[in-house]
């Protein structure tokens, strides 16, 4: 089996390199048969990497400890589901999994465009195959996944206990999908630059890929936050860890791109900017991979560190050089046909939105690499912590929230006084009223007041958009109000799906702000039968229990939770001691409601049965996760328009043209 895995990997390197050469030659020499041959090589690479992955999964499940990777990341006592997810538990496996996703998506993109965009496709193939060849060459030459041990152990070291968690089964695949999917729009952008097809063809073609990449990157970040919340046991979900930042930065530039392409589609403006954003987003995905795997910055994600940093940096430099070289080559053709007419316009709102997104991305990048830069320049590593990120990014994020309300209701090109009065007076008044009510209820944090105020503003504008849209549609098509609302959702899914996403983002803003500012945290040491109080909850320590099997030992506490004298639930926070590797871990227990989360961590229980608990009450954090669910629904609406509704709309417009 190992021979087959190795052979498939070596062949994958050959086929991906061939795909690069054949596709570029085909595009330059206009040789259609080489275009097809290059694409076939890309499909073959996918098949070969699939074989390699199957061989690796087989080795993991069957505990083939003759393979170094299997011995390092599994054991006979590890449940099978975690043996499978050990594929992304270490460096070699995670890069193999990454390559599998990349080649799968490349094959999908090629198949989807087998009869379309033929002029661009050789470059898309060449770009994706170049990235594939880079990753496969790392696997072949530097970190062979099937490296053998001279003396196979009887038992493996086992998977890091932090990774033996449900969220770790879905967080890395979602994040990798998000990272890797940006390769396809980047490939189309390179195709557009190389061929000179700089109209919005490449944008329209890659739109759904961008949405998919953005969606999975958002989901990956959210799953990671949830993992940190449940597993790390410090009461929070985001610590501005370098690797968290690495996944956050392409999400920011990618979101900026998704907004600014609308300006190019409508106004034929911002072509250079859009190219820059897509290149930066892709480059940041490579940079993120570099940060996770280089070990240059200490992180909670230390389980995938290695000495691959210089190779990633070289590849990143190559990507930036080629991409921006092509932009410079086409700079004349990328010049806009139109200029910005007024600062009070939707175009300006989009532009400010973009500047804020890129500003947050830059601040995050600066804070992330500052320890390394300071060490290079002054010889002293100066760490930048959460206060820096919160202080710099907080105000920018609040401004973004406000723009989320302004953007949809301000007029294109130039807002008139009438437009401003009609659209802004009521939501502004509502925002002010909600902010004042918050202050009256005891809120004293300016950030919190601004966030609730702007959230009310945004939610009102979105509701007003649905209302005015339904009225306009009803008048245009003589439909009832309810039919018009449904019609809006079905026939303009991109716009209204986007609004649903905005609603999800508002919920997330509320969850993050309130749970960060108004969190209560207390440490209590109690004997059995004693109780303690945090916020409005009373927790009574009832009992503790020891459990042990071949995989781990567990110490489980039982706490009855009371609110207003009435028992509402029982919590069981745990302390675990994994046997291979010998490592303690915390299993948080919590009671989650729309109002707040009661979050309890078991610190220790001594020989006399005295237990120490770290308890937190995190207000409104439920809305962060619920916002994620709304975001999923919104993306599904925006990404998959109803074919029947679209055809009907086309037929209606065609009749007005030919009249």
């Amino acid at each position, binding site marked *: *089996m190992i021979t*087959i895995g190795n*052979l*498939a990997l070596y*062949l994958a390197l050959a*086929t991906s390199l*061939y795909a690069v050469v054949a596709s570029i030659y*085909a*595009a330059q*020499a*206009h*040789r*259609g*048969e*080489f*275009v*097809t*041959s290059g694409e*076939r*090589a890309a499909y*073959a690479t996918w*098949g*070969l990497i699939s*074989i390699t992955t199957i061989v690796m999964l087989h080795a993991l499940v069957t505990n083939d400890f003759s393979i170094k990777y299997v011995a390092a990341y599994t054991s006979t006592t590890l449940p099978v589901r975690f043996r499978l997810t050990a594929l992304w538990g270490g460096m070699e496996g995670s890069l193999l999994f990454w390559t599998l996703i990349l080649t799968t998506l490349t094959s999908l993109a090629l198949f989807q465009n*087998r*009869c*379309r*965009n*033929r*002029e661009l496709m050789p470059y898309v193939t060449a770009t994706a195959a170049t990235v594939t060849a880079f990753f496969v060459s790392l696997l072949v030459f530097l970190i062979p996944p099937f490296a053998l041990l001279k003396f196979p152990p009887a038992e493996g070291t086992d998977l890091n206990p932090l990774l033996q968690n449900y969220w770790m089964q879905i967080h890395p695949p979602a994040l990798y999908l998000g990272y890797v999917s940006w390769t396809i729009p980047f490939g189309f952008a390179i195709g557009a630059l190389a061929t000179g097809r700089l109209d919005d063809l490449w944008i*329209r073609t890659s739109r759904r890929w961008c949405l998919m990449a953005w969606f999975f990157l958002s989901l990956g970040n959210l799953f990671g936050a949830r993992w940190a919340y449940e597993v790390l046991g410090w009461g929070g979900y985001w610590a501005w860890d370098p690797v968290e930042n690495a996944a956050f930065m392409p999400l920011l530039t990618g979101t900026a791109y998704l907004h600014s392409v609308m300006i190019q*589609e*409508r106004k034929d403006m911002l072509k250079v900017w859009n190219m820059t954003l897509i290149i930066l987003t892709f480059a940041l995905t490579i940079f993120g991979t570099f940060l996770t795997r280089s070990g240059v910055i200490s992180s909670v994600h230390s389980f995938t560190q290695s000495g691959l940093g210089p190779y990633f940096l070289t590849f990143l430099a190559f990507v930036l050089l080629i991409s921006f070289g092509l932009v410079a080559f086409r700079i004349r053709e990328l010049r806009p046909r139109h200029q910005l007419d007024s600062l009070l316009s*939707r175009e300006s709102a989009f532009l400010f939105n973009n500047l804020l997104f890129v500003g947050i991305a830059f601040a995050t990048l600066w804070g992330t690499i500052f320890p390394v830069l300071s060490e290079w320049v002054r010889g002293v590593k100066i760490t930048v912590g959460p206060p820096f990120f919160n202080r710099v990014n907080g105000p920018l994020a609040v401004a973004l929230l406000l723009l989320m309300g302004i953007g949809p*209701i301000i*007029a*294109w*090109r*130039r807002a*008139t006084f009438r*437009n401003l009065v*009609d*659209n802004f007076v009521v939501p502004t008044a509502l925002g002010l009223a909600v902010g004042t009510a918050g202050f009256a209820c005891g809120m004293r944090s300016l950030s919190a007041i601004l966030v609730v105020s702007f959230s009310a503003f945004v939610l009102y504008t979105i509701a007003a*958009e649905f209302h*005015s*849209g339904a009225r*306009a*549609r009803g*008048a*245009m098509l003589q439909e009832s109000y309810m039919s018009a609302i449904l019609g809006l959702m079905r*026939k*303009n899914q991109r*716009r209204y799906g986007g609004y649903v996403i905005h609603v999800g983002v508002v919920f997330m803003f509320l969850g993050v702000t309130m749970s960060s500012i108004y969190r209560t945290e207390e440490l209590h040491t109690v004997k059995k039968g004693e109780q303690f109080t945090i916020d409005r909850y009373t927790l009574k320590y009832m009992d503790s229990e020891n459990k042990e099997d071949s995989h781990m030992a567990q110490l489980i506490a039982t706490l009855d939770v009371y609110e207003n004298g009435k028992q509402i639930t029982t919590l069981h926070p745990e302390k675990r001691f994994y046997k291979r590797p010998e490592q303690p871990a915390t299993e948080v227990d919590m009671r989650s409601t729309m109002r707040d989360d009661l979050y309890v961590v078991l610190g220790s229980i001594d020989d006399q049965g005295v237990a120490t608990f770290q308890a937190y009450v995190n207000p409104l954090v439920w809305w962060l996760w619920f916002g994620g669910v709304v975001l999923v629904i919104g993306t599904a609406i925006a990404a998959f328009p109803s074919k029947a509704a*679209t055809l009907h*709309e*086309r037929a*209606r*417009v*065609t009749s007005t*043209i030919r009249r």
Partner: protein
Amino acid sequence: MIGAFCAVLVAAVAAVIAMPLSPIASVQARDEPAANDELWQHEKAVALLAIAEADFDRATGKLSNDDYAILRSDYEGRALRAIGELDRLDTLPVVGLAVVPAGFCGHCGVRFKDPDRYCSSCGSARG
């Protein structure tokens, strides 16, 4: 057994990649569906939906009449061009054409660039 499997794997990969370069494959390629039709269908769909959006934006007060007129005329032009191209393609036989404009592929209708010996879209040889 494993050696045989490896040999088959190498041969299969080589065959899959080399097949399009053989004369047999270029005959097969000519039987693929026409690409240009899809391209113009897509262009037409995009232009029509952009017009629908502009109609809607004007009706909700997001687009002034002047801007609407500019946008509408731009997208109408694109839609009409796409419709014209589709009508033209409809009048041409698709495969093995007797009537193909000079400089266009007889199979899929894509325009040849000067040095092309094969169609960059479908791989058919230039007649």
